[in-house]
């Protein structure tokens, strides 16, 4: 019973750190990474939850897999937009973040 708790706690920690990273980051790429990790943290909590009963609860697994796929889609689109913005505007930050260090 400790394994799920360990990983769930790790998930919480990942989530929080990444969320903080998202808050502080300005570079869009890093923000995308941070959000991906936030997602991973949530998924880890879910999967850790699923691991409690025996056999494991398959529903959270399905949810996480869906989440991973959705995540990659969003990431891909975000990266494409980022590249486009960088090509157009020469910066990888959103307009409001550009003048600050």
């Amino acid at each position, binding site marked *: 019973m400790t394994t799920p708790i360990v990983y769930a706690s790790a998930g919480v*920690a990942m989530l929080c750190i990444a969320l*903080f990273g998202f808050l502080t980051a300005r570079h869009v790429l*890093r923000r995308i990474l941070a959000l991906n990790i936030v997602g991973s943290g949530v998924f880890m909590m879910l999967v850790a939850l699923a691991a409690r009963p025996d056999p494991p609860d*398959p529903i959270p*697994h399905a949810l996480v897999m*869906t989440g991973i796929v959705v995540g990659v889609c969003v990431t891909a689109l975000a990266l494409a937009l980022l590249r486009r913005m960088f*090509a157009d505007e020469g*910066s990888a930050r959103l307009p409001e973040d550009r003048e600050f260090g």
Partner: protein
Amino acid sequence: MTADAAALDILLAVLLVFLVWRLLTLSDLFKATILFIVFGLLLSLAWVRLRAPDVALAEAAIGSGVTGALVLDALRRLGAHGAVDEARPLRLNLARLSGGLLVACLGAILLWSVLSLPAGWRGLSAEAMAAMPHSGVTNPVTASLLNFRSHDTLLEIAVLMLAVLGVWTLDAEPKPSAEPAGPILDLLVRILLPLMVVVAGYLLWAGGHAPGGAFQGAAVLAAGGILLHLARPFYLGNHVIIRLVIGFGFAVFLAIGVMLVVGGGRFLEFPSRHAGTLILVVEAAATISIALILLALFVGNVREGAGRDAP
């Protein structure tokens, strides 16, 4: 549970958290991306430890593999200038302090929720197990994905399509400088590509009873395509064939769902006798589509001759 297993879990967990910390504080985004890929691989390990091999496969193939490749590719296009983030996340100011506090509070609540969960928490595993005989497959995760919660999956494939559509709406990007493919890469492609196709097929077929399935298979297939693209860059465009393949999986899935309605059932209600077959059909179609989608996402909206140079 043995002590060394517990130690492994704790080590892995700490490592993961540490990686997260590092990759968010490194100013070199390239290094951070490498760490992100490593993080994804370690995460797969964690999924395995949590008895979620399907998720582990998906994470390795998609979460770490495809995403990592996408990020690396994006970084390459951003160039040396765009890849550096000079921000110092640890420099405190009021906003960061309050953000940190809020995040800490959130963490505390989440931790409380994790720790306060009753020991006998069952979730829906019992219901899932009870429903397995009617699902047409023996892998509960596949059953969940493609039968119990097939509606989610249908929409998920739509989301994948949308990502490609979104990328297509953007202006074409400048062609990256064509690097001659090295002989090693060329060789790798020659060897790996057929292997990958086989692995993908296996994963797809195995999905019914063992870890694996459409997404994992498609990811492997897409990885092959990416390798090929790296070795011999090609551009997909949005020709009708490409569009057809991209839409194929979703169309088949939706058509089956609608057909079932026409046949007198409910939307996406696979009759338990044919469930296995139908799921396989759907998965097969989806695999092809998803693979192409992932590849298209990687290749991006670059067309020969249509590229505009960045200002």
